[in-house]
């Protein structure tokens, strides 16, 4: 039986000679269960209460801002003519982008058999759901008269009015709401066995009933596991094109218009790369503190962080390439308006936003070429926040610079947000963090059953068992 125990300190040994397992510290199956359920079953930590109250406070800000918006109308925002799409669309695209990491980790990395995904997929999927919830709230409140929102769906009505299915905005309604629903189904499917664990461990009657209800009577039957794994594989296979389609369709909102700076074919791949870039940054922003606060360094290891930093490096470079290519195509097209739109982005009235975007999104990820940076959690954490900021500014730059100065100088106008724009932005973080703090308190934040499958002991033909067997025979 192999006796070498890998820990936080020696896990980054030369990967050619040997490789540390994904679960460190020599934990067995029972230890993994105990480690994951501790934040749920243990006493409420003061740190958690503090985070929850802060998030709740911000959520209150969101509630007030939206209430005033609904009462007074979208005029309370800084919108003007021609900038009729302000922070609401910026925030929407920002949050949808963040929502891409969860399903990418759970679906695409699953199909590629990237076993390290098991440590982070549950929390990343939850983050996805909450980010999509934040994202959906923005078009909802942006319609102004919220009570007319059902009109976006093809519901028979007395006016015989139907939505226009040729419009990318309507595709977006379907893309984002279906993405949210499928992500929920995927997340819930993954949760069923772990809810069974919570049910079997629950001491209180209410907890046992609640977890038991949602565990659906799961009893770990292998006849069930066979169907379960088939369903999980299908969900991963379906989610893979879905996750790539969502931000593609979001980019169509812009790309199918005639506006200089928006009307480009590079938008779909560029938006998808940016979405994965920002999503992984948010996963890191959340998981690096969580692994410390909830003492899960053996499950969410430095190797996980390093792998995510590498994905940020890759997608960040793609985003940087797209920025350069946009400029090249604007020049190469020979179209005066297109050239102006890009020169104006970099050197016009919104140049400050443009250069924040460039420094956060192009320079920051390049620092991850250095291994020391990738493997030092605190540095990754700080850089991930820069990426979050940069990606918000990317959407701001795309949306506002193109609208504020289009074809006719007589229609140009400078856009600046109001206090209610700000209230909606920071308020949406309140919604996001309220949901996330509740999640880490009441549900297992690491997929217990899935982590166990990537431990070497999970294989019935693991050499440790054979060694023991041979010893017994001899």
């Amino acid at each position, binding site marked *: 039986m192999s006796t070498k125990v890998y820990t936080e300190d020696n896990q980054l040994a030369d990967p050619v000679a040997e490789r540390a397992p994904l679960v460190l510290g020599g934990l067995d199956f029972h230890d993994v269960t105990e480690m994951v359920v501790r934040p749920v079953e243990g006493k409420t930590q003061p740190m958690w209460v503090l985070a929850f109250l802060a998030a709740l406070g911000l959520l209150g800000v969101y509630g007030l801002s939206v209430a005033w918006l609904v009462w007074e109308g979208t005029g309370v925002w800084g919108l003007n003519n021609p900038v009729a799409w302000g922070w609401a669309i910026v925030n929407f695209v920002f949050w949808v982008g963040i929502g891409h990491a969860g399903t990418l980790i759970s679906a695409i990395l699953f199909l590629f058999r990237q076993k390290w995904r098991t440590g982070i997929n549950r929390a990343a999927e939850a983050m996805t759901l909450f980010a999509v919830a934040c994202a959906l709230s923005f078009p909802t409140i942006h319609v102004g008269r919220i009570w007319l929102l059902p009109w976006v769906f093809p519901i028979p009505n007395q006016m015989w009015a*139907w939505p226009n299915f040729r419009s990318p905005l309507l595709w977006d309604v379907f893309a984002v709401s279906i993405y949210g629903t499928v992500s929920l189904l995927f997340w819930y499917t993954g949760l069923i066995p772990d809810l069974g664990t919570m049910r079997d461990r629950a001491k209180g009657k209410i907890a046992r009933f609640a977890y038991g209800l949602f565990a659906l009577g799961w009893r770990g039957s292998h006849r069930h596991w066979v169907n379960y794994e088939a369903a999980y594989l299908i969900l991963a296979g379906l989610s893979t094109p879905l996750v790539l389609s969502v931000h593609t369709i979001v980019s169509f909102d812009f790309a199918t218009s005639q506006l200089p700076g928006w009307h480009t074919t590079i938008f779909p791949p560029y938006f998808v790369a940016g979405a994965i870039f920002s999503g992984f940054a948010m996963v890191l922003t959340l998981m690096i503190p969580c692994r410390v606060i909830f003492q899960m360094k053996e499950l969410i290891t430095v190797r996980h962080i390093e792998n995510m930093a590498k994905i940020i490096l890759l997608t960040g470079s793609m985003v940087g390439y797209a920025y350069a290519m946009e400029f090249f195509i604007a020049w190469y097209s020979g179209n005066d308006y297109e050239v102006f739109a890009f020169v104006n982005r970099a050197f016009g009235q919104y140049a400050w936003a443009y250069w924040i975007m460039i420094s956060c999104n192009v320079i920051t990820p390049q620092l991850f070429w250095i291994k020391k940076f990738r493997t030092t959690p605190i540095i990754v954490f700080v850089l991930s926040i820069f990426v979050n900021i940069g990606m918000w500014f990317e959407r701001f730059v795309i949306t506002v610079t193109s609208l504020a100065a289009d074809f006719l100088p007589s229609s140009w106008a400078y856009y600046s947000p109001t206090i209610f724009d700000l209230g909606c932005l920071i308020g949406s973080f309140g919604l996001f963090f309220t949901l996330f703090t509740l999640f880490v308190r009441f549900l297992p934040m690491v997929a217990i059953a899935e982590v166990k*499958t990537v431990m070497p002991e999970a294989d019935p033909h693991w050499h440790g068992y054979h060694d023991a067997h041979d010893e017994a025979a001899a």
Partner: protein
Amino acid sequence: MAKKLYGALAQFENPAELYHACEHVRDAGYMKWDAHTPFPVHGLENAMGLKRSKVPWVSLAMALLCGTIPAFLGQAWVSSIGSQQVISAKPMIPWQAFIPVTFEVSVLMGAVGALLGMLMINGLPRLHHSLFRSEMFERVTDDKFFISIEAQDPKFDAESISEYLSGLGASAVELIED
């Protein structure tokens, strides 16, 4: 009056022991039996002699019948009969424009089909199961591995089953009431 028996439950300590025990139970010709594990033990379906899952067919049928076809026809109907708007002189049924929504709805229905199909084939959700009467079975979602053989099985013999399962390496055996 003696209560009816559901079957026998045997506990194993690790996937390797479970795997070999399953091979024996399969070869002994038992039909109504099952293995219970905290996580999917890969390859166990061979040791148990199970067939491929039918869930993919449910998912495909749902995706096509409840997703692709109604989504496309619905959009075509809305654009050509429901409301006849001529937009930029485009045709009444521009099929290219209907692809995104058709795709999204197909994915949604395929995903719903996968989850519901999985639950349906597994006979879930259910509120109770006889195995939950066993106290040691609480570890099935943690770190223990089990084989259950139902009393309904034609080969089941209440007298000798405990001895048989212990002989396969079980660390504990229990008879479960129905």
